[in-house]
């Protein structure tokens, strides 16, 4: 009986001590790369803003307060939602038609050199305010920049994409027109960069664009943030 009692005490207290002292091992290393990307990532691809004229950053930045993309989808953590705003409004009329929105049908360009590796071009544009929850990307292209970075441009206007899978594109080349397809309540461009072509395994990476104007001030290299009006040089 005495031995059982001693064994119970020894087992319980050594177990407690062991468990208290192994936090690092139990928590593992996953996420250290995400931290490094967040703090220090320098975009390898030379990126320019993928549109002409002034556009407004409706969502962008590196926290949930600034950017609704930040959580919960890791691949689009630093994504931008971009629209056109004139006189503090993104549209004319009552906003019930896509054509009411300034950015609908506007030219979109490849932000960097690369190869088209995936696309969709036949999805209907939504009625403003109604999201397509089944085909969430809508009409889209994925550009492989051939350096471990992949650009995702989403919500193009139906049948407006003028490149095909396998095509090589260069920075500034027109690829399609802004639309309102997929998981989108109004015409806009969604753009993000990630580490693989897969939504399941890709990790979102911050995008530093070169040579553009932020609220009319020249930016040689920077990450657009919510509330800024940007224009490429």
């Amino acid at each position, binding site marked *: 009986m005495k031995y059982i009692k001693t064994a119970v005490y020894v087992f*319980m207290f050594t177990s407690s001590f062991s468990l208290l002292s192994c936090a690092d091992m139990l928590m593992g290393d996953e*996420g250290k790369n995400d931290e490094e*990307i967040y703090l220090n990532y320098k975009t390898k691809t030379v990126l320019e803003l993928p549109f002409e004229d002034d556009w407004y950053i409706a969502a962008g930045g590196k926290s949930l307060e600034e950017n609704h993309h930040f959580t919960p989808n890791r691949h689009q953590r630093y994504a931008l939602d971009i629209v056109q705003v004139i006189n503090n409004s993104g549209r004319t009329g009552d906003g019930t038609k896509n054509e009411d929105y300034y950015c609908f049908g506007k030219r979109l360009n490849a932000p960097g050199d690369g190869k088209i590796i995936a696309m969709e071009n036949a999805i209907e544009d939504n009625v403003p305010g109604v999201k397509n929850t089944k085909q969430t990307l809508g009409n889209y292209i994925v550009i492989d920049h051939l350096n471990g970075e992949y650009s995702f441009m989403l919500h193009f206007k139906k049948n407006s994409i003028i490149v095909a899978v396998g095509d090589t594109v260069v920075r500034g080349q027109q690829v399609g027109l802004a639309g309102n397809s997929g998981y989108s309540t109004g015409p806009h461009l969604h753009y993000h960069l990630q580490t693989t072509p897969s939504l399941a395994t890709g990790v979102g990476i911050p995008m530093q664009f070169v040579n553009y104007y932020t609220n009319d001030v020249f930016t040689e290299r920077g990450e657009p943030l919510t509330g800024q009006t940007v224009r490429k040089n």
Partner: protein
Amino acid sequence: MKLNRLLFSAAILSAVSVQSQTTQKKNQLEFSVGNNWGYLKNLEFAPVATYDYEGLVYKLNYTRNSKNDNLFEVNLDYLSSNLKTDRLSNLNTDYYKGGMHFSYLKKVYDKNRFTIHAGLQSRTSLAAYHDGDYITFHQEFGIAGRFSYQINEKQYLSSKLTLPFMLLRVTNAEGKFYTLDNYQSVFWDLEYGYKLSNHFDVKATYNFNYSRLQIPSAYRELQHQLNLGINYKF
């Protein structure tokens, strides 16, 4: 925080003002307050390898002993804390977590003051981050065992081990079932109890909770909890 300390003190002090009685009781209601030291990784929520957090945890447990000495246990707990990381301090955020757990444990061994119960447990928990902007719901099912040892007439040790084998996880991103291939978890309690009377015990409990979800947006959580509580038998 002052209120928390007051409750914590009340749980301890009230234990010393109880009266002795002599009948065997079938129901137990326990309230405890303790401190939680936790570590969290949730790459769906933020690009942080490990958040640290510390805070008070409140627990309410009910145990019913059946005629055959089987146990039906219900546990409620609530934790309020702040997730902290020095490296990315601008991503520090609020963290709230509540749980409700049911277990049914059948007596399988009883000899020499040593008792073993074994059975099943259901664990439901809801965690809210950043004022509820991001929420995770976990429903786990697992096997559980309770090992009890009566040291002497007044004192006892009890330990409960739970090994979940299935998880339903719902977050802002998705809802999915996971089994042992991707999900490993262990919950271990070690209790020391001191009988004050037939109606009241005081208890000190250590809890070790660990969960690991092996998916690209990895999730891991480790908790150490030390609780002090009062147990009312009726």
